[in-house]
């Protein structure tokens, strides 16, 4: 097993000095050990990733490829075994599909207004939870309950909150003299409402992930920062955030993927895959679901799924290019 971080690795020692008489024997043993060592270092990385890829090949690859294949066909949910070749028609038609563009736009806006505040709040909460607290256990469990709440319960709650005539939010707005908002019917208001469901469900979850990473930040970093007179806020900015970079990247990537595939929250908002009577909060995931499971056109749904897939790869490339560009820029300054 060879570690990746070559510059940081200490030179590999060959062990203590051997008595001269046994040199040859010792040499053979060392050779044997080093052969075994080499086999181990060469193959163990593959051994460690093998279980993932074996299971993925067995249960993930076939569906993935099959989905791609059926995207090139006319297929109905009535009979998924019967494929009729249509080439790239399912993809090219998306250009003129107003519902697809609508869903794409909604996915983007809901994605932005839900993900950004969510991650910022999660970071803040994780920071607070990282202090020595009484009842820290209770806080952690409580923050994970939205994630553990069933769809049925969440739906009832949000219908109660955002109802036009009987919702608690409109009631509260009425107290301060604001006219009731038709939350579900408006395009801006419904997207805002869906975003709050996303934020509610996933903030605690992300906070927990940040917290686990914060626990691994060495204490002496904080101590020396404190000795330098850094305030808590400064410590957070200059110690916590940089140490958390891999985890922050992780949550940004996962949230981006999650936002692109956003499905459960807009579905549970009014329980319909249309995402509102004007599809005002229908996301790509919901549109795909409607196409496959309600309109029964599996081929078209598969094409939407693969478009989402390729869109994410595109986002990934852009993101990669930006980080490279930023890194080169800073490297240039340092030089």
């Amino acid at each position, binding site marked *: 097993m060879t570690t990746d971080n070559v510059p940081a690795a200490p030179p590999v020692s060959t062990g203590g000095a051997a008595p001269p008489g046994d040199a040859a024997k010792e040499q053979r043993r060392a050779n044997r050990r080093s052969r075994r060592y080499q086999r181990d270092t060469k193959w*163990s*990385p593959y051994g460690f*990733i093998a279980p993932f890829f074996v299971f993925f090949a067995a249960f993930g690859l076939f569906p993935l490829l099959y989905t791609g294949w059926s995207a090139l066909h006319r297929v109905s949910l009535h009979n998924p075994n019967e494929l009729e070749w249509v080439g790239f028609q399912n993809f090219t038609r998306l250009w003129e599909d107003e519902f697809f563009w609508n869903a794409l736009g909604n996915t983007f806006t809901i994605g932005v207004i839900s993900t950004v505040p969510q991650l910022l709040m999660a970071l803040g909460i994780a920071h607070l939870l990282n202090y020595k607290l009484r009842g820290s256990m209770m806080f952690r469990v409580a923050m994970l309950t939205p994630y553990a709440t069933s769809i049925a*319960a969440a739906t009832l709650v949000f219908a109660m909150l955002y109802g036009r005539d009987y919702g608690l939010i409109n009631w509260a707005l009425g107290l301060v003299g604001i006219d009731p908002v038709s939350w579900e019917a408006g395009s801006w208001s419904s997207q805002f409402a869906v975003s709050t469901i996303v934020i509610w469900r996933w903030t605690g979850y992300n906070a927990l992930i940040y917290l686990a990473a914060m626990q691994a930040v060495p204490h002496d970093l904080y101590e020396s920062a404190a000795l330098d007179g850094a305030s808590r806020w400064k410590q957070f900015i200059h110690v916590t955030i940089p140490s958390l970079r891999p985890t922050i990247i*992780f949550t940004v990537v996962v949230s981006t993927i999650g936002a692109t595939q956003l499905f459960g929250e807009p579905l549970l908002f009014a329980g319909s895959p249309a995402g509102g009577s004007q599809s005002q909060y229908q996301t790509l995931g919901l549109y795909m679901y409607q196409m496959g499971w309600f309109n029964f056109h599996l081929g078209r749904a598969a094409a939407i799924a693969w478009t*989402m897939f390729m869109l994410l790869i595109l986002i990934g490339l852009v993101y990669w290019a930006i980080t490279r560009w930023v890194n080169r820029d800073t490297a240039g300054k340092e030089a």
Partner: protein
Amino acid sequence: MHGGWLTYTILAIFTVGSLIPLVWQIIAASHSSGRLAQTPPPLWFGDRLFDNLGSAWTDANLGLALLNTTFVAGTITFSTVLFATLAGFSFAKLRFRAKNLLFLLVIGTMMVPPQLTVVPLFMAVSEVGWTDHLQAVILPMMVSAFGVFFMRQYLSQALPTELIEAARVDGAHSLRVVWHVVFPVARPAMAVLGMLTFVAAWNEFFWPIIALTQRNPTVQVALTNLGRGYVPDQGVIMAGALLGTLPLLIAFVLFGKQIVGGIMHGAIKG
């Protein structure tokens, strides 16, 4: 560092916000369906809690469902955490051919929308005769790309390369390094990943509804049986949802100490 009153206040606000739906679930479970439709909605507990819990329990075959789900979620959690840690360690700290490409492949698998894999998956599962059997919901979820990614990111930050090198110098075989160096450092992340995986596996319903039936259900499948007649009884549905969530909460409270302990342990190591 100790938290001040502001810390407690902010956390309390978020806690209340997070808990409201759960509390509401209990309140809703204690009323009749008709009462729930009235305005203003009930804001305090009614007297139907045990009736509704009883109906939910008998209507939804929940005894078997809870056993099944515990087994399903437990197995999935164990294997996901184990394999994700191994693969995450490999991707974070080891050097091998095609590493970046393979890692991109892992991330790529996260990008496939899960709703659509259901049809081909069912074709495969019915081909091997697993319809209505628990392995149909366990085996496809034994590993997760999310978990591998999570562990890789965590370990690349938290596991000092020197620790591995030091173990290497002592002549430790790879598996020994994993056992004595990687696992102890990874514990907080393993605890969190385990918790998240368990909850997700417990609540998974899209695929199980297709793959299983009431004959051999998981909790989420069993709960789809709660509407009786044309009119869904929200009180009973909420009681069922509560029964389905309760084991998770109990698990949090019981094993929370261990999980938090795991997190703290990792902190000292770091």
